[in-house]
Every structure is written in structure tokens, then in C-alpha cells.
């Protein structure tokens, strides 16, 4: 029984991590209808910023986390203004080719600057190890991930559903022409949203270094996971990818624990089954655009 709960806990933490990493992609892909395969590159940027701040400059881990968000968002806004905005109106194929190119360039650049060895972020002692809660092993670091990601999800949902900015964004997405007619600065809204998505990826990258490992190939290795989360969850809301991440995280961990011979296939099997059942993802709108 306790091992079931331990696995459940690990699965939730893994799922939450997947969510923070992928929800920026859900935003750009679902809300802005832009296929940004370079999403993982922004995550990697956040991870490396956090590593440099903590390991080389001696910052505390918790101070470096927000900065990994900010720096990935800043890189995001520069790229959006300089490059991405020219591709909003282009076909998805153009967007895919462009962003996959960016991904390869980011891999080469980081390899050149930092070397190809895997790096680790020095964690404070308080985040290391496990403690026992009624016999269930709770990893401190994984607990922190659940707390941070949980709060973030609630905040994000509130912003999108309840605030003025949220309604502007939804308006800008659904009908950019009418929205700008109403006085909404559409390019600005898009730029901000894109940067925010990149920032989330950066935070995810910093948080995931401990669990997934951080090296220059990060964007390529985990691209498939981001895409699975978004396709399974459907890209029209935040709740969809959130529940999908949890489901996939728990499924992946449970699969590896109980049927280790199946290994990584559990996550793909789940994806296929869900997509056969609901081709637009768990919470996808049917043919919205």
C-alpha cells in the first residue's frame, strides 16, 4: 500500500514538472496557434541560467529560480520581436522548419559555450533526501515541485479566466482584426504571452535539471514529451494539458515500477489510446479554428 502511495506521489511530481515544462507550449500552440518546437530551447536556457547563478556565482537556489523565469522570458521577448512575429501568418510547416532550426542552433551554441557534459545544480541541503509520512516516502525536492507547480497552475488559470488580460488574449486569438478594432494592442498581447510561455519553460528547465538532467541536448530529448502532453491534453485550455500531464506522469511512473519491461512504451500507449478515444485531446475543442 505504501509503495502505491509513494509511486503516486512520484507520479504527481513528475506530471507537475511535465506540466510546467509544456504549458508554455500549450499557450503558444493552443492560444496563439503557433507551432514552436524550439520551446525546449527556452527551457534549457532557464536551466543553464539557474546553474550558472547557483554553482558559479553562489546564489541561493530559490533566488535563482525566479531569475531563470525572467531570463528565459527576456530571451523569448527578443526572439518574438525579432523573428517569431514574422511567422505568425505563415504555414505551420514554415513554423516547424524555422523553430526546429532554432533548436539545433541552440544545441550547438550551448555545446560550444558550456561543453556537452551533463551539469547539475547544487541544491540546498533542505531540499535533499526523503522523509517518511505514514510510511510513504516523500522526496523533499519533489514535494517542492508539487507546491510550486500547483500554485502556478492555479495562478495561470485565474489570469486566463478572470482577468482583463486573459479576456484580451482570448479575443486577440479568436479574431485578431475585431480585437484590434476594439483597441486591443494585438502584437503586444502576443509578445507578452509568448514571453510568459518562455518564462514558464525556463522555470521548468531549472526545476527539471535535478530530475531529468541538463545537457545541450535537452530540447531534442524532451521535445516529444512536450508534444505528447499538449496533444493528449488538447491545446485550447490550461486544464487540459494539466490533467494530461498528471495522467501521463502517474502512468509513466507506475508503468516503470510495475511493468518495467514495458519501460517507456506506457506513455506512448496511453497517448495512442487517448487519441483514438478523443482525437482532439482530452479537452480539445472540435474544429474551433
Amino acid at each position: 500500500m505504501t509503495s502505491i502511495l509513494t509511486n503516486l506521489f512520484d507520479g504527481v511530481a513528475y506530471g507537475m514538472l511535465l506540466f510546467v515544462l509544456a504549458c508554455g507550449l500549450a499557450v503558444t500552440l493552443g492560444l496563439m496557434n503557433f507551432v514552436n518546437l524550439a520551446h525546449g530551447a527556452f527551457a534549457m536556457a532557464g536551466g543553464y541560467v539557474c546553474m550558472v547563478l547557483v554553482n558559479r556565482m553562489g546564489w541561493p537556489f530559490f533566488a535563482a529560480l525566479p531569475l531563470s523565469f525572467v531570463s528565459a522570458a527576456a530571451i523569448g521577448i527578443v526572439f518574438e520581436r525579432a523573428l517569431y512575429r514574422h511567422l505568425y501568418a505563415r504555414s505551420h510547416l514554415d513554423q516547424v522548419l524555422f523553430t526546429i532550426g532554432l533548436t539545433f542552433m541552440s544545441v550547438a551554441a550551448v555545446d560550444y559555450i558550456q561543453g556537452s557534459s551533463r551539469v547539475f545544480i547544487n541544491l540546498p541541503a533542505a531540499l535533499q533526501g526523503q522523509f517518511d509520512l505514514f510510511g510513504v516516502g516523500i522526496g523533499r525536492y519533489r514535494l517542492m515541485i508539487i507546491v510550486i507547480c500547483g500554485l502556478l497552475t492555479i495562478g495561470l488559470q485565474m489570469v486566463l479566466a478572470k482577468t482583463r488580460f486573459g479576456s484580451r488574449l482570448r479575443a486577440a486569438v479568436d479574431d485578431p482584426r475585431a480585437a484590434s478594432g476594439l483597441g486591443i494592442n494585438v502584437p503586444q498581447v502576443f509578445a507578452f504571452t509568448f514571453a510568459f510561455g518562455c518564462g514558464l519553460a525556463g522555470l521548468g528547465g531549472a526545476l527539471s535539471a535535478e530530475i531529468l538532467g541538463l545537457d545541450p541536448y535537452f530540447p531534442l530529448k524532451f521535445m516529444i514529451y512536450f508534444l505528447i502532453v499538449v496533444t493528449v491534453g488538447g491545446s485550447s485550455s490550461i486544464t487540459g494539458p494539466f490533467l494530461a500531464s498528471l495522467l501521463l506522469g502517474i502512468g509513466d511512473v507506475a508503468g516503470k515500477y510495475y511493468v518495467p519491461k514495458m519501460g517507456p512504451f506506457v506513455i506512448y500507449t496511453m497517448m495512442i489510446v487517448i487519441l483514438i478515444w478523443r482525437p482532439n485531446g482530452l479537452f480539445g475543442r472540435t474544429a474551433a479554428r
Partner: protein
Amino acid sequence: MFERKQFSQKFSWATAIAAVAGLVAVAPAKAEDTVKVGLILPMTGGQASTGKQIENAIKLYMQQNGDTVAGKKVEIILKDDAAIPDKTKTAAQELIVNDKVNFIAGFGVTPAALAAAPLATQAKIPEVVMAAGTSIITERSPYIVRTSFTLAQSSTIIGDWAVKNGIKKVATLTSDYAPGNDALNFFKAHFTAGGGEVVEEVKTPLANPDFAPFLQRMKDAKPDAIFVFVPAGQGGNFMKQYAERGLDKAGIRVIGPGDVTDDDLLNNMGDAVLGTVTAHIYSAAHPSQMNKDFVAAYKKAFGTRPGFMAVSGYDGIHLIYEALKKTNGDTDGTKLVEAMKGQKWESPRGPISIDPETRDIIQNVYIRKVEKVDGELYNVEFQTFEAVKDLGKTKK
């Protein structure tokens, strides 16, 4: 007029090409004085650290020993195959056909070494394997010579050591690819023959992000130790999550071939690795004077510690130099391979030699424990198994 112009353009191109071809035809007279080594390594991709270590070590060796041997100038031509066998094959073909190399060398992973094997046989030139570690490799061509190691060498030794040192129940965690399976099978054979019991066996996917569920399974199986083989890059993640899950506090030790505690990454793994016992061919802390000099020179030149891949590259180029000395600069491939057989020398890892029958390396295997020395983590050797041959050969 237009057509004429095009024709004359074509004509002048043809002249230019013919002229260059003529020059090239004259050139070989000079090329006699150089020996070309085609070095095929993964310089990008997941195995890039292997490639970089070997390249560094070869540069270092050539700085220390000069670039002429037996009156010939040694020229290295480096190609990146990103550890993809198709690219290895293309690179080897180009090197052999266009560059007319006298050796092909390097090879980061087993499939890459195997992809080049038929080409070495066909072209009758030595293939010096400096990294790839499955047993079968040297059997695939009479021209293959290896200076790295085989997983059989280290896995059998740690299996024997474990049963003799109070480890009775072991859970295994190995990466699901050829070297991982080699490590698992050789370990299991020796460990169970000594009376040990394997209580849990997990193979992890090669590209595995999170070890948590596998480690939880290990923990629940309550073994005395976990036998681990994962590619060098993943060792750090494994060790960190091992500590996070409290397996160290549950008294479950880590044993394995030494890839998991590669010197390249060891220092970043944190104190959880302290006490990990592995069997391997090289440690940066090997106490010989030669190794101390090697480590100091390598650190000075490249800013990092050499790992076992670096020393394999260093020995590989040494073997090439020695073979050329023995043939007096004769570059006939068959004679060079003959010259390599039975070579014996002192390497930074200790005394090594090339088995004249299998062309594989014979070397000491050391049992080491991770300890802190001057504030840094090192694999400190405490027991030596001398002159270990590869036990994995099918033709004995």
C-alpha cells in the same frame, strides 16, 4: 552567343579540373613521408564527451612525443560521426578512399566500430578501437585492435568481488543496449556462480529521464547492493536520485563497472557517491608517477580531469606510434597489425599489452571505492586483478 559563352565556361572549368588533377597525381611522391590516421569520433550528440576526451588525449600525446615517428610525419584527420553507425561508415569510406589514410581509429560506440569493420578488412588497414566496449568487436575483422576495455573485464571482476565481500543479494539496473546486456550477463554469471542471488532485474531505456520508479523498485526489493551500468553521462543522475530516495541510508550499496563513476563527472555527483565500489580499468587517482604526470599535463592543457576514455585514446595513439617504429615506417596494413600484436607497455592506467591472439587489450582491473581526497571525489583503488583478458570471446 550565349551558348558559346556557356561552352567556353565549361571548357575552362574542365581545364582547371584537369590541371588540379594533374597536380594531385604528382603529389603522392611527397605523401610518402606522411602517415595519415583517420580519427572517427562522436564530437556532437550524447556521446560527445567521449570524443572530446579522446581527441584531447591524442593532442596531448603528440605534443609530448612530437608528430614524427620512424621518419614519417603523423597527420590526424578528425571526422565526427555523432555515434551514428551510418555516418561512421561514410566517414570511414571517405577517409580510406579519398584521404588514403593508413589507420582508422576512435569509435565511440559498439555499432560504430562494427560499421567500420568490413571496410578495415577490405582496405587491409588497422582499425584501432579506442572506446567501444563489447566483446564481439575484435572478432569482426582481423584488422581490429582495441586499446579501451570490454565490459566483460570489469563486470566479471566486480561479480567475483561482491560475493566474496558479504554481498549476497543484488538487484541489477542496466541500460537496455548491447554494452548494458554484456555487463549484466557477465556480472550475473560470476555473481551467481559464487553463490550470490539476483533478486531483481531491471533494464532501463537508453534515453531515460527519470530513475525514480526503477529506484523505488530496487528499494522495495531490499537487496544488499544494486549493480548498475548506465552510460557515463547518466551516472550522475542515477547517483543523485539514489541518494534522494534514501537508498544509501537504507544500507543498499552501489556496485558496478566503473562507467557510473566516470572521473569526468564524478566531482559533480555530491557526497552520496562516497563508498560506491566499482571495478574498472582506470582511475585519475591511480597512484603511479606516470599517471600523476599524465593527469597534471591533461589538466594543464584542457582544464579538466582525464577519464577512462582519455587514457584509452592516449594508449591508442601510442600503439600506432610503436607499430610504426617496429615496421620502420612501413605503412603496409597487415604488417602494422602484426607489429601491434603482443605490444606491451606502461600506460597511465598501469601495465597493459595487446593479446596476440585476439588483438584485444590485456590489462589490470582495479576495485575502487569513491573517497574524498583533498576536497575532491576520486575512485581510490584498493585491490588489483592483474593482466585480465577479455572473457567474452566466443572463439576461445
